[in-house]
Protein backbone atom coordinates (compact mmCIF):
# COMPACT_ATOMS: atom_id res chain seq x y z
CA UNK A 1 0.00 0.00 0.00
CA UNK A 2 1.40 3.39 -0.93
CA UNK A 3 1.41 6.43 1.32
CA UNK A 4 -1.23 7.94 -0.89
CA UNK A 5 -3.55 4.98 -0.37
CA UNK A 6 -2.91 4.96 3.38
CA UNK A 7 -4.01 8.58 3.58
CA UNK A 8 -6.86 8.20 1.06
CA UNK A 9 -5.54 11.08 -0.96
CA UNK A 10 -7.60 12.33 -3.87
CA UNK A 11 -6.60 15.95 -4.30
CA UNK A 12 -3.49 18.07 -4.87
CA UNK A 13 -3.81 19.60 -1.41
CA UNK A 14 -3.38 17.81 1.93
CA UNK A 15 -6.74 17.93 3.68
CA UNK A 16 -7.13 18.38 7.45
CA UNK A 17 -6.48 15.21 9.44
CA UNK A 18 -5.81 14.27 13.06
CA UNK A 19 -2.37 15.91 12.94
CA UNK A 20 -3.84 19.21 11.70
CA UNK A 21 -6.44 19.15 14.45
CA UNK A 22 -3.90 18.42 17.21
CA UNK A 23 -1.64 21.25 16.04
CA UNK A 24 -4.54 23.71 15.72
CA UNK A 25 -5.81 22.95 19.21
CA UNK A 26 -2.35 23.12 20.80
CA UNK A 27 -1.53 26.42 19.13
CA UNK A 28 -4.92 28.07 19.75
CA UNK A 29 -4.80 27.13 23.45
CA UNK A 30 -1.37 28.70 23.91
CA UNK A 31 -1.27 31.78 21.71
CA UNK A 32 -1.68 34.96 23.75
CA UNK A 33 -4.96 36.84 23.34
CA UNK A 34 -3.17 39.81 21.79
CA UNK A 35 -4.11 41.32 18.44
CA UNK A 36 -0.57 42.66 17.99
CA UNK A 37 0.86 39.14 17.86
CA UNK A 38 1.96 37.93 14.44
CA UNK A 39 1.81 34.20 13.72
CA UNK A 40 3.02 32.24 10.68
CA UNK A 41 1.80 28.82 9.64
CA UNK A 42 4.30 27.12 7.34
CA UNK A 43 3.01 24.48 4.93
CA UNK A 44 -0.60 25.44 5.51
CA UNK A 45 -2.10 23.04 2.94
CA UNK A 46 -5.86 23.55 3.03
CA UNK A 47 -5.48 26.47 5.44
CA UNK A 48 -7.22 24.58 8.24
CA UNK A 49 -4.74 25.32 11.07
CA UNK A 50 -4.27 28.97 10.09
CA UNK A 51 -8.03 29.34 9.69
CA UNK A 52 -8.67 28.00 13.18
CA UNK A 53 -6.03 30.30 14.67
CA UNK A 54 -7.67 33.24 12.88
CA UNK A 55 -11.12 32.23 14.09
CA UNK A 56 -10.27 31.33 17.68
CA UNK A 57 -7.62 33.91 18.62
CA UNK A 58 -7.19 37.65 17.99
CA UNK A 59 -3.68 37.29 16.50
CA UNK A 60 -2.87 38.12 12.88
CA UNK A 61 -2.00 34.90 11.07
CA UNK A 62 -0.09 34.53 7.80
CA UNK A 63 -0.01 31.17 6.00
CA UNK A 64 2.58 29.92 3.53
CA UNK A 65 2.94 26.89 1.29
CA UNK A 66 5.11 25.73 -1.60
CA UNK A 67 2.10 24.31 -3.42
CA UNK A 68 0.16 26.75 -5.67
CA UNK A 69 -3.07 24.77 -5.20
CA UNK A 70 -2.66 24.95 -1.42
CA UNK A 71 -2.10 28.71 -1.23
CA UNK A 72 -5.21 29.27 -3.35
CA UNK A 73 -7.28 26.96 -1.17
CA UNK A 74 -6.01 28.62 2.02
CA UNK A 75 -6.66 32.09 0.54
CA UNK A 76 -10.21 30.89 -0.07
CA UNK A 77 -10.49 30.41 3.69
CA UNK A 78 -9.87 34.13 4.09
CA UNK A 79 -6.32 33.65 5.41
CA UNK A 80 -3.50 35.90 4.19
CA UNK A 81 -1.23 33.59 2.21
CA UNK A 82 2.20 33.67 0.61
CA UNK A 83 3.70 31.09 -1.75
CA UNK A 84 7.05 30.36 -0.15
CA UNK A 85 9.80 27.85 0.50
CA UNK A 86 9.57 27.41 4.29
CA UNK A 87 10.43 30.77 5.91
CA UNK A 88 12.68 32.11 3.11
CA UNK A 89 10.72 35.30 2.17
CA UNK A 90 9.90 36.53 5.68
CA UNK A 91 11.76 39.37 7.36
CA UNK A 92 14.09 38.78 10.31
CA UNK A 93 12.59 38.81 13.82
CA UNK A 94 9.00 39.06 12.57
CA UNK A 95 6.90 36.32 14.15
CA UNK A 96 5.79 35.76 17.74
CA UNK A 97 4.96 32.17 16.85
CA UNK A 98 5.46 29.80 13.91
CA UNK A 99 3.34 26.65 13.53
CA UNK A 100 4.30 23.79 11.22
CA UNK A 101 2.76 20.39 10.45
CA UNK A 102 5.60 19.18 8.21
CA UNK A 103 5.74 16.38 5.68
CA UNK A 104 7.13 13.71 7.96
CA UNK A 105 6.46 10.20 6.68
CA UNK A 106 9.69 8.29 6.08
CA UNK A 107 9.67 7.28 2.43
CA UNK A 108 11.77 4.87 0.41
CA UNK A 109 13.18 6.96 -2.47
CA UNK A 110 12.11 4.25 -4.92
CA UNK A 111 8.52 4.53 -3.75
CA UNK A 112 8.24 8.30 -3.97
CA UNK A 113 5.85 9.76 -6.49
CA UNK A 114 6.45 13.03 -8.20
CA UNK A 115 3.47 15.22 -7.40
CA UNK A 116 2.24 17.80 -4.89
CA UNK A 117 0.94 15.20 -2.47
CA UNK A 118 4.41 13.68 -2.20
CA UNK A 119 5.68 17.09 -1.13
CA UNK A 120 2.91 17.29 1.46
CA UNK A 121 3.57 13.86 2.99
CA UNK A 122 7.09 12.64 2.36
CA UNK A 123 9.88 13.53 4.73
CA UNK A 124 12.49 11.62 2.75
CA UNK A 125 14.25 8.48 3.95
CA UNK A 126 14.42 9.51 7.63
CA UNK A 127 11.23 11.60 7.65
CA UNK A 128 13.21 14.73 8.47
CA UNK A 129 14.17 16.02 5.01
CA UNK A 130 11.94 19.09 5.46
CA UNK A 131 12.05 19.37 9.27
CA UNK A 132 15.86 19.81 9.34
CA UNK A 133 16.03 22.83 6.99
CA UNK A 134 13.00 24.31 8.78
CA UNK A 135 14.82 24.07 12.13
CA UNK A 136 17.93 25.61 10.59
CA UNK A 137 16.07 28.65 9.29
CA UNK A 138 13.08 29.33 11.54
CA UNK A 139 15.16 31.10 14.21
CA UNK A 140 15.87 33.97 11.81
CA UNK A 141 12.20 34.96 11.44
CA UNK A 142 11.26 34.59 15.13
CA UNK A 143 10.88 37.63 17.37
CA UNK A 144 13.18 37.55 20.45
CA UNK A 145 10.62 35.68 22.57
CA UNK A 146 9.12 33.84 19.61
CA UNK A 147 8.16 30.17 19.84
CA UNK A 148 7.60 27.31 17.40
CA UNK A 149 4.75 24.77 17.51
CA UNK A 150 5.97 21.77 15.53
CA UNK A 151 3.99 18.59 14.96
CA UNK A 152 6.16 15.45 15.09
CA UNK A 153 5.22 11.80 14.65
CA UNK A 154 6.75 8.81 16.38
CA UNK A 155 7.39 7.56 12.81
CA UNK A 156 9.81 10.46 12.38
CA UNK A 157 11.44 10.19 15.81
CA UNK A 158 10.60 12.80 18.42
CA UNK A 159 13.97 12.44 20.19
CA UNK A 160 15.88 13.00 16.96
CA UNK A 161 13.87 16.16 16.21
CA UNK A 162 14.40 17.47 19.76
CA UNK A 163 18.14 16.85 19.43
CA UNK A 164 18.27 18.60 16.05
CA UNK A 165 16.32 21.56 17.48
CA UNK A 166 18.83 21.69 20.34
CA UNK A 167 21.67 22.05 17.84
CA UNK A 168 19.89 25.14 16.52
CA UNK A 169 19.63 26.63 20.02
CA UNK A 170 16.08 25.60 20.90
CA UNK A 171 14.75 24.00 24.06
CA UNK A 172 11.77 21.71 23.49
CA UNK A 173 8.76 20.69 25.53
CA UNK A 174 5.91 18.41 24.43
CA UNK A 175 2.64 20.30 24.88
CA UNK A 176 0.18 17.81 23.36
CA UNK A 177 0.16 14.23 22.17
CA UNK A 178 -2.28 11.68 20.85
CA UNK A 179 -1.83 7.99 20.04
CA UNK A 180 -3.09 6.21 16.94
CA UNK A 181 -2.65 2.58 15.85
CA UNK A 182 0.44 3.27 13.74
CA UNK A 183 1.92 6.40 15.29
CA UNK A 184 1.87 8.81 18.20
CA UNK A 185 1.58 12.48 17.30
CA UNK A 186 3.28 15.07 19.48
CA UNK A 187 3.22 18.86 19.35
CA UNK A 188 6.59 20.25 20.41
CA UNK A 189 6.90 23.82 21.64
CA UNK A 190 10.39 25.10 20.79
CA UNK A 191 11.76 28.18 22.51
CA UNK A 192 15.11 29.92 23.08
Amino acid sequence: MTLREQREIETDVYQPAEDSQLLAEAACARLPADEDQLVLEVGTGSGYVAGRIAAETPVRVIASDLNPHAVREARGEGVETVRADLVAPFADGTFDAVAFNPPYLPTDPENEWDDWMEHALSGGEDGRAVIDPFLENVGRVLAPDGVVYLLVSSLTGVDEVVERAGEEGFSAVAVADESFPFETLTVLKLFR
Partner: protein
Amino acid sequence: MSAVSRPFRERLCPFRSRSLLLSAVSLFIMKESLLEILCCPLDKHDLELEDAEYDDAGEEIVAGTLVCSECGERYPIEDGIPNLLPPDMREETPA
Protein backbone atom coordinates in the same frame (compact mmCIF):
# COMPACT_ATOMS: atom_id res chain seq x y z
CA MET B 1 -16.35 43.06 3.39
CA SER B 2 -12.67 42.72 4.11
CA ALA B 3 -11.33 39.37 3.03
CA VAL B 4 -9.01 39.04 5.98
CA SER B 5 -11.45 39.93 8.72
CA ARG B 6 -13.96 37.53 7.26
CA PRO B 7 -14.58 34.76 9.79
CA PHE B 8 -13.40 31.27 8.99
CA ARG B 9 -16.70 30.39 7.41
CA GLU B 10 -18.53 27.17 7.92
CA ARG B 11 -15.73 25.67 9.95
CA LEU B 12 -17.84 22.66 10.73
CA CYS B 13 -17.67 21.61 7.10
CA PRO B 14 -13.98 21.78 6.09
CA PHE B 15 -14.40 19.48 3.10
CA ARG B 16 -16.79 21.62 1.09
CA SER B 17 -16.30 22.23 -2.59
CA ARG B 18 -13.18 24.13 -3.56
CA SER B 19 -14.74 25.44 -6.76
CA LEU B 20 -17.31 27.22 -4.64
CA LEU B 21 -14.54 28.91 -2.66
CA LEU B 22 -12.66 29.96 -5.75
CA SER B 23 -15.72 31.79 -7.02
CA ALA B 24 -15.42 34.24 -4.13
CA VAL B 25 -13.42 36.79 -6.10
CA SER B 26 -13.36 39.32 -3.27
CA LEU B 27 -10.97 37.07 -1.38
CA PHE B 28 -8.20 37.49 -3.91
CA ILE B 29 -6.64 40.62 -2.57
CA MET B 30 -3.48 41.23 -0.57
CA LYS B 31 -3.21 43.57 2.41
CA GLU B 32 -0.58 46.23 1.79
CA SER B 33 0.72 45.73 5.35
CA LEU B 34 1.87 42.25 4.36
CA LEU B 35 4.71 43.97 2.49
CA GLU B 36 6.36 44.94 5.77
CA ILE B 37 6.95 41.34 6.78
CA LEU B 38 8.16 40.06 3.42
CA CYS B 39 11.68 40.12 2.03
CA CYS B 40 13.57 38.77 -0.96
CA PRO B 41 13.93 34.99 -0.39
CA LEU B 42 17.38 35.07 -1.96
CA ASP B 43 19.19 37.91 -0.15
CA LYS B 44 16.61 39.02 2.51
CA HIS B 45 16.57 42.64 1.33
CA ASP B 46 13.40 44.76 1.22
CA LEU B 47 10.86 44.42 -1.57
CA GLU B 48 9.27 47.31 -3.46
CA LEU B 49 5.79 47.17 -4.97
CA GLU B 50 5.54 47.95 -8.70
CA ASP B 51 2.65 47.97 -11.18
CA ALA B 52 0.16 47.67 -8.34
CA GLU B 53 -3.53 47.22 -9.15
CA TYR B 54 -5.87 48.03 -6.27
CA ASP B 55 -9.41 46.89 -5.56
CA ASP B 56 -12.39 49.20 -6.02
CA ALA B 57 -11.94 50.70 -2.56
CA GLY B 58 -8.31 51.42 -3.40
CA GLU B 59 -7.11 49.75 -0.22
CA GLU B 60 -6.08 46.21 -1.06
CA ILE B 61 -3.69 44.93 -3.72
CA VAL B 62 -5.18 42.73 -6.41
CA ALA B 63 -2.08 42.35 -8.60
CA GLY B 64 1.40 43.71 -8.98
CA THR B 65 5.06 42.82 -8.76
CA LEU B 66 7.41 42.79 -5.80
CA VAL B 67 10.94 43.78 -6.74
CA CYS B 68 14.02 43.23 -4.59
CA SER B 69 15.68 46.55 -3.77
CA GLU B 70 19.08 44.85 -3.87
CA CYS B 71 19.23 42.12 -6.53
CA GLY B 72 16.30 43.31 -8.67
CA GLU B 73 14.62 39.88 -8.76
CA ARG B 74 10.90 40.21 -9.53
CA TYR B 75 8.10 38.31 -7.74
CA PRO B 76 4.51 38.35 -9.04
CA ILE B 77 1.36 38.92 -6.97
CA GLU B 78 -1.49 36.91 -8.47
CA ASP B 79 -5.02 36.69 -7.09
CA GLY B 80 -3.84 38.46 -3.96
CA ILE B 81 -1.14 35.85 -3.31
CA PRO B 82 2.49 36.91 -3.63
CA ASN B 83 4.67 34.20 -5.16
CA LEU B 84 7.91 34.54 -3.22
CA LEU B 85 9.49 31.33 -4.44
CA PRO B 86 12.99 31.72 -5.88
CA PRO B 87 12.83 31.75 -9.71
CA ASP B 88 14.09 28.16 -10.03
CA MET B 89 11.21 26.83 -7.87
CA ARG B 90 8.40 28.82 -9.45
CA GLU B 91 6.86 26.27 -11.85
CA GLU B 92 3.32 25.09 -11.23
CA THR B 93 4.43 21.45 -11.30
CA PRO B 94 6.34 19.79 -8.46
CA ALA B 95 10.13 19.87 -8.53
